[in-house]
């Protein structure tokens, strides 16, 4: 527990140096990811040196300059939640302003409203619903994570997410009976775990279709 003490001391000392950006190399030992600067930072020493050597050529941009600055945490609770919902192969929702999002966290269905406390939630297979005015869009999410930031931005990442009308109820039933049978006949721990996963997913699919 105390081996982290030195790290915290350095960080506390770096707290003063942080406002100067990256100019003090020793002070910024390991910045928190929540310390992404509000404005894109430039390495002034590098740019000066570049201009001396090649004044007519634009200095190359560092990766940090390409990063969009983090939207500032507003002092008043915003009225809308901005949602980004991405899958490995496409981005389902990108910066959409909504009223509420209900995510299937492992700890239960979690409703996220604007002004929600910053949370990282692991998702279990279940229903994700996006509420905007009177319309509700429902997706069945396989598993993933939801990052809710203090400034009412929610980033949800999942491996597979489908609108519920694309799910075939008969296949779900068949899968459920198959896996329940596998669970009862499983011998090794791994087989039991696999069968349990199958049962969990299919019951969640069933619940999503009927709920």
């Amino acid at each position, binding site marked *: 527990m105390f081996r982290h003490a030195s790290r915290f001391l350095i960080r506390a000392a770096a707290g003063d140096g942080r406002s100067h950006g990256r100019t003090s190399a020793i002070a910024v030992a390991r910045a928190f990811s929540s310390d992404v600067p509000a404005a894109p930072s430039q390495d002034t020493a590098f740019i000066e040196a570049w201009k001396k050597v090649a004044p007519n050529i634009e200095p190359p941009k560092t990766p940090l300059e390409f990063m969009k600055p983090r939207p500032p945490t507003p002092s008043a609770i915003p009225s809308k939640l901005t949602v980004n919902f991405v899958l490995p*192969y496409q981005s389902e929702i990108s910066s959409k302003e909504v009223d509420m999002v209900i995510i299937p966290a492992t700890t239960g269905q979690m409703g996220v409203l604007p002004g929600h406390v910053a949370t990282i939630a692991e998702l279990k*297979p279940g229903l994700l619903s996006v509420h905007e005015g009177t319309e509700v869009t429902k997706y*069945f999410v*396989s*598993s*993933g994570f939801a990052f809710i930031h203090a400034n009412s931005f929610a980033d949800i990442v999942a*491996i*597979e997410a*489908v609108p519920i009308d*694309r*799910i*075939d109820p008969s*296949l*779900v039933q068949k*899968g459920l009976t198959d896996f329940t049978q596998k669970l009862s006949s499983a011998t090794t*721990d*791994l087989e*039991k*775990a*696999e069968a*349990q*996963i*199958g049962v969990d*997913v*299919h019951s969640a*699919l069933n619940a999503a279709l009927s709920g």
Partner: protein
Amino acid sequence: MSSAVPFWRAAGMTYIGYSNMVASAVRKCLKEPYRSEALGREKVHFTISKWSDGKPEKPTLRTDSAEE
């Protein structure tokens, strides 16, 4: 007292293995044509070349598609 681990980790599975298994189960429950599109995403095709003593051994080809 050890921390509460999910049942799949206790059985030796990693999160990514678990997550892929769940995604695969969901994909198998879709209606056509979404099902075939989705199962197409699971296909892998790669070769593994092991090296020993600074020389490559015969590469092994892996082509997997989602089992029906």
